[in-house]
């Protein structure tokens, strides 16, 4: 093959007739291809989200691999020799259960099967830390499973409402808006309960996002839309149970977790019913159907929690692909023209992250500003979460999105998988992104395909 490459290069050199013609390129394509900086892995198959950052030291690789094992552990009902403590109520039994192949969960055919889907719940008002006010008897997350002999908190149900979107060229795409309800509950839910659906996202590159300097994120805030572009951007400030202080929110669909560690500990506690030093009380403690046993808490050691968080912090981001493709280059220009990048901030440089030099000082292309934006009524959950109001969601990172079909076998996007393709995800944008969305519907079919090709290449 080397010979072929050489011949190819020579051929190209001699085939150039005229170097004056302008050929568009994507700026910083070389840097942009290495989406996760030096952590980037050149992997574009089914296993593309499962690789350790390629620059890990031997010691950190060992911790990563220990975390990998923790991420896969299935918990069982106590007492047990191995992995006891599941439930009593839960949504799933392992991290990987909701984040298959470290990627995105599919929207389940059956909402009450074991899946990466659940509803958060609260009642109006806030808790002592200004977070969501838990629903009495249910907490802040609804569990649709329980260990044998216990009753799940609820069973979920969904129906759909059609939302047709008309394109300038006459194309019509019909979005399906899910409307969730509770078909069974072990005690009646409060009449004023607020729900917010969630579908588990990929866990690649999280350490890099955590290492983006706070000042860089805050500098992109424009609370009163001073620059008049219709886009504000707001930082969430949330409670950190580790430091017992208020911190910038970075993780979760509404940026309500300050760190990968807290997000991970929260998932153990709420998703699996596993207690840790950060969340030492069972999510169902005190409920009539819940777990009364407190003697075995915390059910995982600090070391296990740290390893699982370290794993998520050091999963490599796959390299961007096909950035030299003509359509991808045209799509990049449309991404700029439609102002997608106003919120999907392309480039960041990470700061110093204590203990993990490999994710420190990296130039990365996650395509997120890490801020909250009003996304319009159709996406709104009507449930506030610290400073995020019922219309606001955090800008999602887009890196790796084009590999979702291959890695996870589906393209169910957004916080509850309601978008069935990248195009539908764009069409669900409203609020601050209304103009960009409308401009998308005015593109020609070729232009839309080019924009989608660019998004899928990053």
């Amino acid at each position: 093959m080397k010979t072929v490459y050489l011949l190819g290069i020579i051929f190209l050199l001699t085939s150039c007739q005229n170097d004056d013609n302008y050929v568009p390129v994507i700026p910083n394509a070389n840097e942009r291809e290495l989406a996760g900086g030096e952590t980037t892995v050149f992997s574009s198959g089914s296993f593309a989200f499962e690789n350790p950052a390629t620059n890990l030291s031997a010691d950190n690789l060992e911790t990563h691999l220990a975390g990998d094992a923790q991420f896969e552990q299935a918990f069982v009902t106590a007492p047990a020799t191995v992995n006891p403590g599941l439930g009593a109520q839960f949504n799933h039994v392992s991290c990987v259960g909701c984040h298959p192949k470290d990627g995105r969960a599919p929207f389940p055919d059956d909402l009450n099967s074991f899946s990466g889907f659940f509803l958060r719940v609260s009642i109006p008002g806030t808790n002592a830390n200004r977070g969501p006010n838990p629903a009495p008897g249910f907490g802040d997350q609804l569990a649709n499973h329980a260990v044998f002999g216990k009753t799940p908190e609820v069973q979920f149900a969904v129906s759909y409402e059609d939302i047709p979107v008309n394109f300038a060229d006459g194309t019509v795409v019909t979005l399906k808006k899910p409307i969730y309800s509770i078909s069974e509950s072990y005690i009646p839910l409060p009449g004023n309960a607020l729900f917010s659906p969630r579908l588990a996202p990929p866990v690649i590159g999280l350490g890099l996002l955590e290492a983006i300097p706070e000042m860089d994120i805050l500098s992109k805030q424009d609370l009163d839309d001073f620059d008049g572009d219709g886009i504000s951007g707001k930082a969430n400030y949330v409670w950190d149970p580790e430091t017992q202080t208020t911190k910038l929110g970075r993780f979760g669909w509404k940026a309500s977790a300050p760190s990968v560690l807290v997000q991970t500990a929260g998932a153990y506690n709420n998703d699996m019913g596993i207690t840790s030093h950060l969340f030492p009380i069972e999510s169902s403690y005190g409920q009539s159907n819940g777990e009364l046993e407190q003697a075995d808490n915390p059910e995982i050691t600090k070391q296990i929690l740290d390893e699982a968080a370290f794993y998520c912090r050091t999963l490599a981001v796959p390299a961007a692909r096909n950035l030299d493709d003509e359509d991808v280059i045209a799509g990049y220009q449309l991404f700029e023209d439609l102002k997608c990048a106003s919120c999907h901030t392309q480039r960041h440089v990470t700061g110093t992250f204590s203990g993990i030099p490999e994710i420190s000082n990296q130039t990365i292309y996650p395509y997120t500003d890490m801020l909250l934006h009003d996304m319009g009524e159709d996406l709104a959950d009507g449930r506030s979460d610290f400073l995020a109001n019922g219309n606001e969601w955090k800008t999602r990172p887009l890196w790796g999105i084009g590999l979702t079909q291959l890695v996870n076998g589906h393209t169910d996007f957004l916080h509850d998988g309601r978008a069935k393709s990248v195009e539908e995800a764009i069409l669900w944008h409203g609020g601050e992104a209304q103009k960009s969305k409308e401009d998308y519907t005015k593109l020609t079919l070729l232009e839309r395909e080019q924009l989608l090709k660019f998004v899928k290449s990053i």
Partner: protein
Amino acid sequence: MKYFFKLKSTLIIFAIAALTFSCSDDNDTEEIVEQSDYNEHLTNIANNVIVETYRDLANKATDLKNEVIDLQGDISASNLDNARQAWRSTREPWEKSEGFLFGPVDLQGIDPAIDSWPVNVVDMDNLLSDTVNFPAITESIIDAQTDEAKGFHLIEYLLWGIDGNKQVADLTTRELEYLVAACENLETKTAELYDAWRADSGNHVANFLNAGASGSIYVSQKSALEDLVDGMITIADEVANGKIETPLNGENGAGFDPTQEESRFSHNSKLDFANNVRSISNVYNGKFSIDGKGVSDVVAESNTTLDGTFKTQLVEAIQAIEAIPGTFTDAISDNRTAVENAQTKVRIVQETLESLIKPLIVNL
């Protein structure tokens, strides 16, 4: 090493990209870097290794269910022995499929549903005792349980008992009901898996046969080959650094821990590990139901020495696992050197795949 190779490939791509952009007409570029044709390799591995392994698995799972039904009808030592043998026979193609844990086995949640670990003994016992709410234990009741209350290891637990010495007299009627239902569930899941792949049903196999053509999830044949190599790496890593390492040295090096052994009730672990390496060997050599083209032929095209070395490493890994004396359970305390040797040989397989074969495929 891994990074070095990948970086190099990037540089080559950029060199070509840069040259491309400087030309007024770049229509010829794609032809120049066009790959060799690996359709024959991919077709053979998919049809004759992957689909055939799953066919074998589905058939053996049916045999297992039938043996367990026989045991339920006639509770005898010989029928218990037959059921145990049938479990081992079913286990074999499953372990030989763990070198390709991608596609439907993963996307449809079949891997956890049939091979989850550890067993949720508390839930199982509670279901066994609850004759009020569950007067009969049926397949649909088992299907609704968490994955840890069904599948290979729960069936293994019921057939052998926690210490591996269950007597036929210990089997209760309820346990036999649970066994039959769990085996029916295993049969259903393995049939789903085979159906998802085969051409006249779910046809996942077409993604390999048509890799690089429209309609395939693989944008190129190289991308399909990459999945095959990643699959091999994944199981080599799992055997060396999970299945052997955790019982041998405990979680976080806490000391040997037999409770972490995967197939400890049946003492089938050595065979499990050897069959895992055989799954790598089958994909690499393109050899299962017939001997056709495999990844080996792709590697040999550019590096016959590497191909020969790797084949030897595969044989040595299997031999080292089989050379562990007695049961794996005993060996982690009594013959640690033999276990460590087997672990080393599997790590060599992993290392060669990661640092030499994967880069070769990625740079095709």
